[in-house]
């Protein structure tokens, strides 16, 4: 059962344009969402995160939007740069009934972003 889904295996964008990466989830207990970027032969690198009490978080060229009713989040990169070419993973974590967060991140399958010069 895939609780976090990234339905686009790949995305190709021209340099300077906007990249929009999408992620859907099914577990209503998820309350914290993260985006990671991964280059070959490296571990995932944290990009940006958002708590379920917010609907938007910005950090420089990166903005994450959360639509809780639709169980959907997206990552916008503006403007896109060739160095952004990588695999992007969305991930989610949940809290138990006592409010303690788990150390378990549930990841999507990833989207390969290619930014052409």
């Amino acid at each position: 059962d895939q609780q976090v889904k990234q339905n686009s295996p790949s995305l190709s964008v021209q340099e300077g344009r906007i990249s929009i990466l999408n992620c859907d989830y099914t577990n209503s207990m998820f309350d914290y969402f993260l985006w990671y970027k991964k280059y070959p032969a490296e571990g995932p690198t944290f990009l940006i995160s958002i708590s379920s009490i917010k609907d938007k978080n910005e950090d420089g060229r990166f903005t994450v939007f959360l639509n809780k009713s639709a169980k959907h989040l997206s990552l916008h990169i503006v403007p896109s740069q060739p160095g952004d070419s990588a695999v992007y993973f969305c991930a989610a974590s949940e809290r138990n009934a006592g409010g303690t967060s788990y150390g378990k991140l549930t990841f999507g399958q990833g989207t390969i972003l290619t930014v052409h010069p």
Partner: protein
Amino acid sequence: DAGVTQSPTHLIKTRGQHVTLRCSPISGHKSVSWYQQVLGQGPQFIFQYYEKEERGRGNFPDRFSARQFPNYSSELNVNALLLGDSALYLCASSLGTGGEKQYFGPGTRLTVT
């Protein structure tokens, strides 16, 4: 400050053998989580340790075990290796119990022949 470090970088083992992977978290981080990533998929959660206690376990067989040491470093052990255990094994550390931002190491590439 050094990031999360993992050793070895690459490893080749034969079916039925045992393997130990090691991880050192970022200084000051008390939580370590282990993930398995097979080609074409996202990382899958294996274990989380916080303050030397197991806090979470993913859907992996008992052949997988782990522990955390007093200096917060960690080992992942896999017994009776199968071909399907071939993957990138990632370690991540975080300050708190781990549900927040986790910092990943470069991973250990395990190949089982």
